[in-house]
């Protein structure tokens, strides 16, 4: 077996700030990798670089063995709407607010060539129930949904093409605590049932513990510690990780 995503030597500066400083990371098939760290640690930048949305100044990112910088823009975008998914912190960034829930879910299917309305509709209905949204809301606009529903709709819209690798940027960030638990549990089930590989950026240690097989701790653009989720959280080695873990209430 080989890693699905493999990055090494990633460096990127914003002026005097080192957003990424010689970062190496790999993601294996079926593995959930959490990137944790405080705001400004470079974790969101890393996610953008790994998903090809931003170029690093140095280093390579390989997906399925191919350097993503060697892919044409067309190939990268094709990858982004089929093999990959991206879940944004703010569902408004990942949804089309003027298009119905069904249209939002169907878009990736249609973008990949689906041309049978009945099939697209059936798939949208199935995904709505899967993310616990009343299928009767299929023709409703996302702005009539609660924040938690919007986030679940975004997840359905992303997973409908059965991607192999999903990037998630603080997917529970803007939600109430009670809603977060429900979403996390749903994500956990989907990830396992679909055998997804996931790179999830979060500052929520509890979410990382629940979802991730492995954790990468970032600080000042560097990976300061990485390993098995429960080992990093229960037996942290780096001073920063110890601070991070000890700052959490009953993670």
């Amino acid at each position, binding site marked *: 077996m080989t890693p699905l995503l493999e990055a090494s030597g990633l460096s990127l500066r914003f002026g005097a700030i080192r957003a990424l400083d010689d970062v190496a990371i790999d993601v294996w098939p079926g593995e959930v990798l959490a990137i944790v760290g405080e705001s400004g640690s470079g974790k969101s930048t890393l996610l953008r670089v790994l998903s090809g949305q931003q170029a690093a100044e140095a280093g390579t990112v390989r997906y399925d063995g191919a350097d993503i910088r060697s892919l044409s823009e*067309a190939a990268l975008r094709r990858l982004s709407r089929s093999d990959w998914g991206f879940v944004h912190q703010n569902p408004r960034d990942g949804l*089309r607010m003027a298009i*119905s829930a*069904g*249209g939002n879910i*169907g878009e990736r299917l*249609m*973008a990949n060539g689906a*041309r049978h309305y009945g099939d*697209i509709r059936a798939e949208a209905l199935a995904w709505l129930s899967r993310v616990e949204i009343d299928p009767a809301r299929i023709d409703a606009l996302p702005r009539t949904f609660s924040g938690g529903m919007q986030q679940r709709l975004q997840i359905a819209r992303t997973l409908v093409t059965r991607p192999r690798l999903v990037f998630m940027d603080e997917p529970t960030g803007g939600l109430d605590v009670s809603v977060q638990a429900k979403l996390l549990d749903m994500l956990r089930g989907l990830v396992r049932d679909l055998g997804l590989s996931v790179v999830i950026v979060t500052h929520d240690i509890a979410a990382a513990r629940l979802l991730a097989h492995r954790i990468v701790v970032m600080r000042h653009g560097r990976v300061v510690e990485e390993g098995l989720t429960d080992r990093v959280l229960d037996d942290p080695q780096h001073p920063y990780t110890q601070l991070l873990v000890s700052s959490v209430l009953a993670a």
Partner: protein
Amino acid sequence: MEQGYNFAYLDEATKRMIRRAILKAVAIPGHQIPFGAREMPLPYGWGTGGIQVTASIIGPNDTLKVIDQGADDTTNAISIRRFFARVAGVATTEHTAEASIIQTRHRIPERALREDQILVYQVPMPEPLFRLEPRVAETRRMHALAEYGLMQVRLYEDIARLGRIGTAYNYPVMVNARYLMSPSPIPAFDNPKMDRMPALQLFGAGREKRIYAVPPYTPVKSLDFDDHPFRAIRAPHACTLCGSTSSYLDEVVTDDRGGRVFVCSDTDYCQSRREKAA
């Protein structure tokens, strides 16, 4: 011919620039080519793009027909026809069969066009994706990569809301299985006429400064779903004047008590049928 103007109003350098754009457009069917649109002696929205295309391709031996919504006798059609009669001294006609160039707004003539004819469309908005994707740079990228799922989403929304595709005009088409194209605001009823048409079809958008083309015999397919195929819809009536049951009809209100009739929108087609019947 009016003195003091170059033949067909535009100067020769401008015509050459526009012809180059047209050649490029013909070479890449359905792809929008930017061009340096000139100020014309009529307002935007009245056909400035179509006029510049016509001015660039017209020669002294051409016969020009101009229609607006299918009619030869509306203000816009008459003005443009007179304009070219004055600045190019060309013959004009109202008969589709006699014209070598037909400039049109919102219709394709009912009579089938021939290889020796050119159809010039006036286009208000050349970008078929503009209502769906507000960023122009992003629409260009979508064309470049042939990413047209979003347009399909619009049709999906139509069916979800109305039970059918509700787009009645400016119905999006795929040209040569590559570029998504706006057919200009012609009724969807006319879309099938574009497919493999023997005549060259040129499209000019003056305000938006774009030219695009469909060369003769190019496949033009209206977007649809397998289980909701495209259908060319016309009012289910016969023309009150000529009795046609196959032409595209306009609904005309005849009094203030709700009276109305349906008549052919293509006035030349209707007239010739009536003459034949008489």
